[in-house]
């Protein structure tokens, strides 16, 4: 290797490097960091090597580092002379042939192309790769890269980390050369200070100041140390930096060594990073051979050496004094500061320690100057920071962002929102000792001070995104468990305080925590934070304190309701499906009972868990599907269809009376307590069922002529036959529930009367008030609210529709109206302001509507309704929307444009949502929330008025059947506890015993779906459009259950 | 003056704390004057009374029976006082906690016995996994550590309680 001693030898090396980096033949670079290798990059590399060799192609193949987009690994970059560098994503060995073929003909496969790079600013040099490929987006146009600014990662994924010449080609070691030529160390320190570079290890101390301390220290030996002990779970920026561009680290350290007057450099790197150690060792060797380390560096008479030390992977060694202890051969335990390392560090000598990333910023600052550097970032935090964006976010990877960028930009722009479109709940910054920041605070700029104010830290740059499937109690427990196991044990608060915290948190996740434990955790957390010896203990309580501050209700759920909504804390749930079911049906039980051929028992088990099993069997949103573990094998068990089958079989048989009698026999002895239920919708019926079972005298008041609520009057006949509801209501009547129809509370009977006559009152009147959009023309003839329309059809008094119907909205009411209108012979268009995937309606329903000929106009919002001289609807004008920022629902907010389109139509149905009848809510004298819903205690459903309870849509706003029924069940339980005292609820649960054998192997059958009638046939009438599964299919379906409710895995 | 209704109860302890209550010299006269002893090993009452002003608890909670007792005591007492280290810290009663109960019982009733080598189960309350201080199960209003607490401390505590105050014991008592 050429020894670089002067400008001439420098140029020779640089030219050699350029010839490798932008050769006059095609070059393929395979991203071979640990991350790429883990995703199959090695096989891809070998496939390329083999194909190039066998086919004798004139292509240069190199392995490069990582370009940062983990979600798209393995990444391969291809450059054909004169053309831009193209980054290919998710390259498989099977793609190798066509990539090489493409290169031979001067193209790249478009389907694999992620982006192109025409020119690249390596900061220390500018490289022009070429132009062309107009169809491939430039890298700055890719959302993941767009907000990024690559200073630290300037070379990563582009140059070969194994070849020093390529590093020199992109301006490497130029800064060092400049510093040595200028021979003015104080000036360099002034520049670093002026750049306002702060330590990237997390504490954010000014690097220039730290350098000045060491420069001024007088001693025989002085040490410059690089802290590469990256121990945070989920953080890998340092690993990637070293693996992709080791020479940048060396250059930063040699400059630092010279400027600070250090005699030796030491890199303390995790032994768990073998590839980083390997590449760094080679880079150090190359630097030695080239005269960049050792004696007489660059011929300027400066002597400096760098030693590599592998750490044993203790998290606490990230703390600088513990790192020094470890270097000295002692156990990694921190020492009190003062004395600070700059006074008394390694071997008692003055020592400077900087994080890997800090060192990477040095060369660019020297080359481009402090003013350029401090242009990026916020006032107090200059420059960029590399973050590992991981967790429940669409785009994961290493991102380098200007400091001061808002969390919103990280999560929604770079990350492109939550995984699978789910709303993001929180983000945890700073690694295991960082805090959790809730979605409401995503406007927060990411800099040292702001994060600290929120109880979090910058740390080394971890960023873990969380959604509703993350339990925040478990998150706190997980991180405390980590710091607990990494605590060195030297000081009492960290050693014992974390142990005590972990005990309490474990009690939470097992449902054994008490109310007082909240205060206890808070007290311990503060004490550990305020009194611990080192940074580990001082920051360890952050995840705990912030989750308790921002997600206190989740902690309370674990105590009061013994529930973990995310379904993470396994001991609080029977099984994932049970946990997800708003009625908490014991699903594995009824599946098992049916599998054992005990259909009567299965019916009892189903009904005691869910009094409307046939209706819900048709219309439930089935959240259980999303949680079923069987998905890991093939697809979820169709639990909904099995209980529909069980219910239908009994309801339709001549044994209904017998089984109804069996349910009635489960009633507890009469209590002589009288309970009124207002509203005979799913919520009220459910509450009445359980209250009657508990032995109370129950009366339901319903304003409509028949019970059933939305099930009866909103959901169309083709989805749910009225006969089905009648059977279910019949069963509830047989339990002794009196249903008084045609009586409106507030008009025909007053709340005060109920108060006087009953021991408790349950209000479940739902959301029957139509939300309305106010736009020009809504007063025209032929404009209907969806609910009113559906109700008119359900009452056989259907409104007249014109031949062309436009429906505004994307929920179930919109789709129900559309399919109903199709059955009435109209031509239907649904107008929705977002995209299809954002529609709140059940997906099967939307698909069915499309099959039936319903048209969709997405990204459109109504502008005005046009009518003729008689005032009849003629057309609707819509504005085209584009999608803007993400809102709290995790969807992009529609933003109207100027573009207006006209849709000719004769009828407009507005299905833009339902709300609580505010007049009733206000007249009731109950405390109501801003959105009009009735305020209740989260756990008991008690309203502000004694004896009055409320549930269903009335308290939640428009929701769905199973959620509503869940409230009914909960209300019954709490009302009973109130009028009778606790401990009675368990007595009405099914006591049937059932098999608890885990299937040795999952039965191979695939999921059975219910049978849809052909679209052409079903659109002809209102008969049920979906026929349930058969007895055999139900049996196979039940057998598909993996029985994750069974905990003791004895066999 | 209405007398203060005082109960004492003996859980897993050695009776030393009860002895110490008697061993407070002339202060005992004040106790006799001010207190009505309504329950305890020193009183002939079979059931724990419904309403008690102060209950002094000796001993840790070690068995199922102790647990039931202390829950009743808590329900029926205005103030619950943990008297002595066993009630306050577990102390001697907790020294068995490092050994699993089954092993412990076998060591004593089987290995250590010459006759009837069997672990008794009939009519003997089941041991809890650990013997623990009273406050791990019920709210305790005052802790009086000591093995036993000094006569001076006990006299002071009773005097203060009779006056309707919860005494401040900081620096007046010690463990052991």
């Amino acid at each position, binding site marked *: 290797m050429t020894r670089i001693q002067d400008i001439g030898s420098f140029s020779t090396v640089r030219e050699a490097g350029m010839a490798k980096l932008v050769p006059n033949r095609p070059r393929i670079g395979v991203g071979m960091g640990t991350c790429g290798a883990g995703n199959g990059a090695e096989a891809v590399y070998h496939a390329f090597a083999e194909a190039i060799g066998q086919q004798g192609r004139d292509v240069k193949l190199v392995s490069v580092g990582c370009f940062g987009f983990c979600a798209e690994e393995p990444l391969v970059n291809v450059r054909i002379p004169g053309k831009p560098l193209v980054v290919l994503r998710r390259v498989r060995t099977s793609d190798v042939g066509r990539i090489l073929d493409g290169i031979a003909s001067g193209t790249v496969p478009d389907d694999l192309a992620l982006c192109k790079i025409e020119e690249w600013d390596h900061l220390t040099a500018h490289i022009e790769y070429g132009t062309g490929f107009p169809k491939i987006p430039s890298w700055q146009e890719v959302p993941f890269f767009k907000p990024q600014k690559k200073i630290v990662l300037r070379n990563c994924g582009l140059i070969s980390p194994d070849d020093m010449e390529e590093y020199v080609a992109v301006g490497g070691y130029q800064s060092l050369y400049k510093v040595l030529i200028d021979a003015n160390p104080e000036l360099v320190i002034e520049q670093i200070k002026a750049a306002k570079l702060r330590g990237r290890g997390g504490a954010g101390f000014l690097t220039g100041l730290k350098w000045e301390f060491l420069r001024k220290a007088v001693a025989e030996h002085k040490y410059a140390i690089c802290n590469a002990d990256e121990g945070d779970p989920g953080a890998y920026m340092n690993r990637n930096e070293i693996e992709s561009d080791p020479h940048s680290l060396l250059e930063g350290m040699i400059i630092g060594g010279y400027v600070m007057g250090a005699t030796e450099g030491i890199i303390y790197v995790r032994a768990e990073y073998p590839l980083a150690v390997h590449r760094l060792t080679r880079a150090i060797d190359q630097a030695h051979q080239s005269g960049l380390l050792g004696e007489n560096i660059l011929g300027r008479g400066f002597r400096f050496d760098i030693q590599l030390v592998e750490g044993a992977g*203790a998290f*606490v060694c990230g703390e600088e004094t513990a790192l020094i202890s470890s270097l000295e051969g002692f*156990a990694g*335990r921190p*020492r*009190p500061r*003062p004395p600070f390392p700059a006074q008394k560090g390694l071997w008692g000598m003055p020592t400077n320690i900087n994080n890997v990333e800090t060192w990477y910023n040095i060369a660019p600052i020297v080359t481009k100057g402090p003013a350029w550097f401090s242009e990026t970032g916020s006032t107090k935090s200059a420059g960029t920071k590399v973050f590992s964006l991981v967790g429940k976010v669409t785009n994961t990877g290493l991102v380098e962002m200007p400091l001061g960028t808002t969390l919103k930009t990280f999560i929604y722009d770079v990350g492109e929102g939550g995984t699978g479109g789910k709303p993001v709940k929180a983000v945890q910054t700073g690694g295991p000792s960082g805090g959790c920041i809730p979605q409401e605070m995503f406007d927060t700029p990411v800099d040292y001070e702001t994060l600290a104010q929120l109880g979090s830290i910058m740390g080394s740059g971890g960023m873990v995104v969380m959604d509703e499937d993350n339990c925040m109690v478990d998150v706190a427990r997980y991180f405390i468990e980590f710091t*607990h*196991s*990494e*605590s*060195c*044990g*030297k*000081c*009492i*608060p960290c*050693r*014992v*305080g*974390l*142990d*005590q915290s972990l*005990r309490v948190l474990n009690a939470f996740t097992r449902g054994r925590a008490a109310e007082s434990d909240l205060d*206890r955790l808070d*007290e*311990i957390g503060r*004490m550990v934070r*305020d*009194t*611990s*010896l080192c940074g580990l203990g001082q920051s360890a309580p952050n995840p705990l304190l912030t989750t308790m501050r921002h997600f206190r209700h989740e902690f309370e759920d674990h105590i009061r309701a013994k529930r973990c909504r995310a379904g993470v804390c396994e001991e609080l749930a029977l099984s994932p499906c049970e946990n997800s079911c708003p009625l908490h049906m014991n699903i594995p039980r009824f599946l098992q009972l049916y599998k054992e051929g005990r259909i009567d028992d299965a019916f009892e088990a189903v009904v005691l868990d869910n009094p409307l099993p046939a209706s819900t069997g048709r219309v439930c949103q089935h959240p259980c599907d999303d949680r079923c573990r069987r998905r890991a094998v093939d697809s979820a068990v169709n639990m909904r269809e099995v209980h529909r089958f069980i219910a239908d079989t009994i309801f339709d048989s001549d044994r209904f009376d017998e089984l109804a009698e069996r349910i009635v026999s489960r009633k507890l002895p009469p209590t002589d307590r009288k309970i009124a239920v207002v509203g005979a919708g799913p919520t009220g019926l459910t509450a009445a069922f359980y209250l009657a079972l508990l032995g109370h005298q129950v009366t339901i008041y319903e304003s409509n002529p028949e019970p059933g609520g939305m099930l009866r009057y909103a959901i169309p006949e083709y989805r749910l036959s009225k006969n089905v509801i009648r059977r279910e209501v019949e069963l509830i009547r047989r339990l002794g529930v009196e249903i008084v129809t045609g009586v409106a509370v507030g008009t025909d009977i007053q709340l005060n009367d109920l108060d006087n006559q009953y021991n408790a009152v349950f209000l479940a009147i739902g959301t029957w008030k139509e939300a309305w959009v106010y736009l020009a023309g809504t007063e025209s003839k032929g404009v209907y609210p969806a609910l009113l329309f559906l109700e008119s059809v359900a009452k056989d008094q259907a409104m007249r529709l014109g031949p062309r119907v436009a429906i505004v909205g994307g929920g179930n009411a919109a789709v129900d109206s559309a399919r109903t209108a199709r059955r009435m012979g109209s031509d239907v268009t649904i107008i929705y302001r977002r995209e299809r995937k954002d529609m709140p309606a059940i997906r099967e329903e939307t698909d069915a509507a499309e099959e039936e000929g319903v048209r969709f106009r997405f990204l459109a919002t109504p502008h005005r309704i046009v009518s003729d001289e008689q005032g009849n609807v003629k057309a609707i004008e819509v504005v085209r929307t584009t999608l803007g920022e993400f809102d709290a629902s995790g969807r992009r907010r529609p933003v109207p444009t100027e573009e207006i389109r006209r849709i000719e139509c004769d009828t407009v149905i507005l299905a833009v949502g339902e709300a609580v009848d505010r007049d009733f809510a206000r007249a009731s004298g109950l405390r109501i929330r801003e959105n009009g819903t009735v305020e209740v205690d989260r756990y008991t459903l008690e309203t502000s008025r004694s004896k009055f309870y409320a549930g269903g849509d009335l308290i939640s706003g428009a929701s769905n059947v199973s959620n509503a029924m869940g409230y009914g069940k909960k209300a019954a339980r709490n009302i009973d506890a109130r009028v009778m005292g606790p401990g009675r609820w368990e007595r009405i649960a099914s006591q049937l015993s059932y098999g608890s054998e885990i299937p040795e192997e999952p039965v191979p059958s695939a999921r059975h779906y219910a049978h849809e009638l052909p679209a052409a046939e079903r659109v002809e009438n209102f008969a049920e459009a979906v026929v349930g599964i058969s007895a055999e299919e139900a049996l196979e379906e039940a057998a598909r259950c993996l029985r994750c409710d069974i905990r003791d895995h004895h066999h | 003056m209405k007398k203060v209704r005082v109960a004492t109860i003996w859980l897993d302890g050695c009776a030393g704390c009860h002895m110490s209550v008697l061993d407070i010299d002339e202060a005992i006269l004040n106790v006799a004057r001010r207190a009505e002893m309504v329950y305890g090993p020193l009183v002939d009452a079979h059931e724990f009374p419904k309403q008690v002003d102060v209950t002094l608890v000796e001993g840790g909670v070690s068995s199922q029976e102790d647990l039931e007792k202390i829950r009743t005591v808590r329900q029926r007492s205005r103030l619950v006082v*943990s008297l002595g*280290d066993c009630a*306050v*810290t*577990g*102390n*001697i009663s*907790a*020294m068995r*906690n*490092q050994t699993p109960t089954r092993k412990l019982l076998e060591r004593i009733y089987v290995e250590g016995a010459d006759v009837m080598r069997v672990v008794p189960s009939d009519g003997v309350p089941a041991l809890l996994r*650990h013997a*623990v*201080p009273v*406050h*791990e199960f019920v709210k*305790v209003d005052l*802790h*009086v*550590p000591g*093995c036993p607490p000094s006569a001076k401390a006990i006299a002071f505590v009773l005097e203060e309680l009779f006056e309707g105050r919860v005494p401040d*014991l*900081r*620096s007046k*008592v*010690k*463990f*052991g």
Partner: protein
Amino acid sequence: MADKISVRIDGEYVAAQQGQTILEVARAGGKFIPTLCWLENLSPVGGCRLCIVEVSGVGRLLPACTTPAQDGMSVTTNSEKLTQYRRMALEFLFSERNHQCAVCVSNNHCELQSMAQRLGVTNVRYPYSFPKMRVDASHERYVLDHNRCILCTRCVRVCAEVEGARVWDVSGRGIHSLIVSDMNRPWGDSKTCTSCGKCVEVCPTGALAEKGFGVEEMVKRDRKVRRLAGRRGGHV
């Protein structure tokens, strides 16, 4: 001659010398700051955190034993928060191992016990861990009872800094930390132990004791050791 400085402790000016720690200044001025791991003339480690104090203008609490006093510094040694934290630290210690004072050789002569009394700890609110700990009675004259150990590391330091034998060290980490002799061999097998007994004398609790003493009989006399340590002229 060291530079004279002036430090305000709890509102009173106290004369001090540059290089003294806050604790040294306070002690010299007759001010009490609680300590457990600190021992005069041994190198301070700042492990027990009982000596935390508030210093005006500093957002964090600082350990008095390792923080150098500076001219013009204003120190508060006692506040509601400090007392609360100190008590919690003691409660943590009691909950961590098995401290049955009543049957301990050091009963009534124990620094942990007397500190609890002094700071008004009358009960431990946190659940006890009840760990199963060993007792090493292999040494012919002394015994190490891990049940009573509070990991103050005075034994480690006195052995290394004064006796120069380096018998003791801490193995494991976090809640599993344990004092060990000679690479975790029984103390009685130690090739390095000189049986000088300094570790026993400086141990604040009954963890290290002389054999043959019953309950309450072990009285530690660390004055000689402290004087010896002082003669060595500062710590390593």
